[in-house]
């Protein structure tokens, strides 16, 4: 038994290094997508202390809007622009109709409001787009769909070009986001609001404008995530459940840290894949990905309750 846990998995890794590389690549791709979803949560939490339960359905809604517009005859890249417009309108409506009337309410009320947004978007989306699985317009957007095949160590390593593209776009998005938050006035305003609402407002930062902005950025992230996930297995409301995969990422990386979301996402993506392949499937019958990330996050929380990158808050009473 001890050999099955401590020796054989590593012997398997050494015996088939090409397979190990494939496992790591698949984990990396999953991790990037988890990180993207987690980023949407983090951004909104940093600026408003709202845990946005609607982030998952925003991914579905953005992807369905894109595909729906294209099905209606709109050219692919015009559909992207129009979808961004829809996500902006959604951000404005959420701020005006849901968040503004709830300013000053306890966090749990705002959290419940985002559950309401989720339920509304599910119903509204199903009325507009129907519940059928739709094909993502990958080729129309110019995303390559072929595979790149390598033969490392005489083995086989298959990299999907759309996964490589998704990884590249995600990296650009994160860099852009970091530059925006650190180098622009608006970005600094978002961070200031996250640190202290009252102080930020006292120096003229508009709560309403910032909330619209962060929900819009979360909408952009949702669209990118929706394209990347949708290219893998189609676009349907089933995509929403993927958002739950971001929860352990947030527990691990901390709710307020952008770097935490990225590192946490990549860590969980790769570790859960390694565990599933080398320990889960041979020893536990597989399907460990449903719980492994939560167990990992739980262990981290035992030692760092604020997550790996979260801020340690000391409250004196």
């Amino acid at each position, binding site marked *: 038994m001890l050999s099955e846990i401590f020796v054989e998995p590593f012997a398997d890794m050494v015996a088939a290094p090409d397979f190990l590389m494939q496992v790591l690549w698949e984990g990396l791709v999953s991790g990037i997508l988890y990180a993207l979803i987690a980023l949407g949560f983090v951004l909104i939490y940093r600026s408003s202390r709202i845990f946005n339960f609607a982030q998952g359905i925003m991914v579905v809604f953005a992807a369905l809007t894109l595909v729906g517009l294209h099905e209606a005859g709109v050219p692919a890249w015009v559909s992207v622009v129009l979808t961004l417009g829809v996500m902006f309108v959604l951000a404005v409506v959420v701020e005006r109709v849901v968040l503004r009337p709830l300013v000053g309410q306890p966090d749990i009320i705002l959290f419940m409001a985002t559950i309401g947004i989720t339920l509304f978007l599910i119903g509204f989306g199903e009325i507009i787009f129907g519940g*059928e699985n739709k094909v993502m317009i990958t080729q129309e957007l110019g995303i390559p769909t072929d595979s790149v095949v390598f033969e490392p160590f005489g083995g086989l390593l298959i990299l999907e070009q759309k996964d490589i593209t998704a990884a590249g776009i995600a990296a650009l998005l994160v860099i852009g986001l970091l530059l925006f938050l650190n180098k622009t006035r608006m970005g600094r305003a978002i961070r200031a609001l996250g640190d202290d609402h009252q102080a930020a407002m006292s120096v003229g930062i508009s709560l309403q404008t910032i909330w619209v902005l962060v929900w819009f950025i979360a909408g952009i992230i949702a669209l990118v995530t929706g394209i990347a996930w949708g290219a*893998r*297995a189609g676009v349907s409301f089933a995509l929403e*459940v*993927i958002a739950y995969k971001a929860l352990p990422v947030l527990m691990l990386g901390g709710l307020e840290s952008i770097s935490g979301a990225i590192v946490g996402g990549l860590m969980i993506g790769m570790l859960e894949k390694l565990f599933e392949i080398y320990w889960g499937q041979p020893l536990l019958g597989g*399907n460990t990905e449903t719980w492994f990330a939560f167990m990992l996050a739980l262990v981290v929380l035992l030692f760092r309750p604020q997550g790996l990158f979260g801020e340690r808050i000391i409250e004196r009473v």
Partner: protein
Amino acid sequence: MRMTAKLLAAAVVAAVAGSTASAESIYAPNLSYRTGPFAATGIPLMNGQKDYIDMLNARDGGIGGVTVDFDECETGYSTEKGVECYEKTKGKAIVTQPWSTGITLQVLPKTNVDEIPILAPGYGFSPMADGKVFKWAFNAPSSYWDGASMILQYIDSQDGLKGKKIAFLHLDHPFGKEPLPFLEKKAAEQGFELVPIPVGLKEMQNQSAQWLQIRRERPDYVVMWGWGAMNAGAITEAVKTKFPMDHFIGVWWSGHDADLDLVGEEGKGYKSISWSFPELDAPVMADIKKYVVDPGNSQSNEKEMQGVFYGRGLVISMILAEGIKAAQDHFGTAAIDATQLRWGLENLDVTEERLAELGMTGMVPPFKTSCSDHTGHSGGWMLEWDGAKFVKVSDLLKPETDAIAALEVEKAKEYADANAPWPMNDDCN
């Protein structure tokens, strides 16, 4: 006194009118799922079911002179909501159509008490075939064990089973696990290696780990028990990992045109066992168009109506309608109740001639139910994706009913013992 007589007369008239009104329709609810992660597969099935009943109501004035009130209660494929829907509709229902193995298992004991037949065509708990134990449950025309048996026979006819390795990719849910007892038994008997590979609900669209395992195990065949978004996830991963599609076979719920549309030509060769087939030129399709689609009463569309799942929805409602008709004929009443429908479902005899009368030749194999056989074991055809649609690539395959019956009796007894005191149908010999 005259006033009292008038009131009495009015009450009698009202009572008669009321009973006439209730005799004009029979209530047949459907626990549907047009929303949620499984909606993509549910919608065409529900549309087919509804259109067939709407066609009967419009063309024939219903069945035997009474219209069918086909009500949908939305479950989103959630077992909890399904049980709520069952409780909400059971009051006047003559049947319950639970539409999920999870919901079926939950309502199974309740139907004994409420005396409502469960109609679960091609799904639910395979031992429901044993009518001695499961008096109120019907899964005609084929059970999951029938499906597993037909798939194994097909593989055996192609490459032989002995010494082969078969990966069983399945949803980690009661539905996905349902054929395991039969497959395990056959693996031991026929000398092939079975590798069960579960897919969690949250992993349906990200099955890279499962397909890495398939790459490592190098199975000769992959047999899939998938549903909803899991099908699309698996088929796209199979294409991505360059698994030979002609060695990838799904159960009938994994043969949905829209899932294969995602990969198109690259999915060529993928197979699905099926007890239904869409015959676009069948007379029933013309009637559906004339009485439901043209008046604007269908929620379906032209493309969906050409698919396997829409056609299967029609067949499912046909089974219900035939059960109602059999009960009406036997009991000599149009407004049958749940107990009478139970008799009808237990005495289905869908022959080739009857299918021709219904305008459904080739859409389902003939089958017959009885007190001791609530499934009918119709058999099915192996369908293959040709890059644009599913086509039949086999003659009618029949399940090994002897092997299945023995296991049905064994597992039905286990179920009854585990849920004792369980009422048995002593009328069944």
